[in-house]
């Protein structure tokens, strides 16, 4: 009698007998993605962009602390950057909407999360009023805490922001909320070290621009214009960060350059080198997984 792979009938074979079709259903590395070098290098720009925006924020604080950067300059720069960035964002939104719809899914997503200009204006006014009203409190918030503790907390929070930032993959660790909140907490910590309340207000506003608004713009630009703009943004931000570090503390600039080269070129090389060693096994014993995308035409 031929052996059947069942246990609910008595067979003449032992219960743990296996025949030549054993492990036929084993599949290896079904879902693995083969990476290519240059696209990975271009995508790694997201990480270096976030790192350089953190570096630029800290450099702005350091310059304001050393009185090399005047308050008026900060307000002017951040104000014009915000207005120009918002205008660019709106233009891209409009031009994306007039493109032929790639899939019904995208169009529905756009219309659900659409915010009008008045909504954004209300958010901006709310935020500016809150920051302005709270800046006297923020200014004297950490007077009794030693400077070293403040610097350590800020560094830890900004590191948290870098690590937990939403770079794209849907992993459990990613949490856009926590990373933004950590960045705001860091900005409050460090803003309380500055000379006057207007400095505090400027720092908090700058932090919101760099950690909340700029990521949105960067994502929009990357989605709309593809890899040229991505490379351009990476180079621009990293050069700016590198130059400000040179001005501030040259050894740090060297470290930044080393980290940049490591993340941009070293890590993709490493990933591609070890990708062939991947050994995932799949089979009928795996847990069933549903399709996560809900079909929207139903």
């Amino acid at each position, binding site marked *: 009698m031929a052996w059947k792979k069942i246990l609910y009938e008595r067979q003449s074979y032992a219960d743990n007998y296996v025949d030549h079709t054993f492990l036929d259903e084993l599949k290896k590395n079904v879902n693995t993605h083969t990476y290519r070098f240059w696209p990975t290098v271009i995508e790694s720009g997201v990480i270096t962009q976030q790192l350089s925006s953190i570096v630029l924020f800290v450099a702005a604080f350091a310059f304001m602390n050393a009185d090399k950067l005047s308050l008026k300059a900060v307000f002017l720069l951040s104000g014009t950057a915000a207005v120009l960035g918002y205008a660019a964002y709106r233009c891209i939104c409009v031009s994306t909407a007039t493109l032929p719809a790639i899939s019904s899914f995208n169009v529905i997503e756009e219309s659900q999360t659409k915010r009008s200009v008045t909504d954004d204006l209300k*958010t901006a006014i*709310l*935020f500016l009023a*809150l*920051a302005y009203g*709270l800046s006297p*409190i*923020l200014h*004297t*918030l*950490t*007077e*009794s*805490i030693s400077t070293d503790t403040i610097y350590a907390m800020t560094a830890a929070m900004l590191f948290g922001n870098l690590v937990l930032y939403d770079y794209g993959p849907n992993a459990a660790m990613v*949490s856009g*909320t*926590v990373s*933004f*909140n950590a960045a*705001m*907490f860091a900005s*409050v*910590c460090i803003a309380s070290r500055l000379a006057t309340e207007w400095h505090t207000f400027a720092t*908090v506003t700058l932090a*919101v621009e760099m950690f*909340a608004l700029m990521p949105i713009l960067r994502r929009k630009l990357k989605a709309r214009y593809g890899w040229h703009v991505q490379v351009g943004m990476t180079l621009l931000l990293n050069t700016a960060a590198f130059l400000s570090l040179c001005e501030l503390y040259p050894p740090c600039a060297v470290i930044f350059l080393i980290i940049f080269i490591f993340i941009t070129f070293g890590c993709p090389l490493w990933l591609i080198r070890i990708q062939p060693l991947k050994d995932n096994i799949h089979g009928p014993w795996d847990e069933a997984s549903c399709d996560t995308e809900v079909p929207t035409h139903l």
Partner: protein
Amino acid sequence: MLLGIFLLWVLLRSPLLPTVADSVLFFAENLVRILQELLNWLMGVPAGLKLNVPLNFALGKFFLYHIYLWKGYIAILLMPNLAPLLLCIALVGIGGVSFQLSMLSDLMGLLTFHMYCFYVYAARLYFLMFYAVRSLFRLFRGKKWNVLRERVDSCSYDMDQLFAGSILFAVLLFLLPTVLMYYAVFTSLRVAVIVIQSTLSALIGFINSSPVYPVILWLRQAPATKGIA
């Protein structure tokens, strides 16, 4: 009751009453002075802890003003009425020493009423701040309290909520130690007063439940104490 009448007789006959009145007044004023010194200590650098200066100053001034009002209260309401009040306490001794002790406990409550007020202010402020910090910490982690399921769920907040929430979280977190300090100090004072009042109350309970009358009957071999024989 005998003890009460004895104490009443002692108080009325001897010139003890004015001295008792003076000592009560002295106690009240001392209390006020101690509290003022305590507040000045808190407004400085208490126990080497460095508290947030503006908040510390604001809270300290608020409580000092309250003490100033309290001093007025003592001067206007309490002082003229103190002697009759003590006479009242002594007279009540007809009911027994337990009455006098309970009136003493109430008098103590009246004299330390400002400490009770301070405790209530500090406790409310502290619990409000603590509740806010807890709720905002959940916002920091991207979670929310689900009232329906009574558990902590994840929640996708709007940008506006995140802005306001994270800044307020930082502010309230840094201001919490100062309020905690005030809360701890006033709670311990309140606990001290409660300890004294409950000792008095335990004493009263002991006196009330001590079987003086049956013992006296037994000593006199009254028939009520003899068993059925």
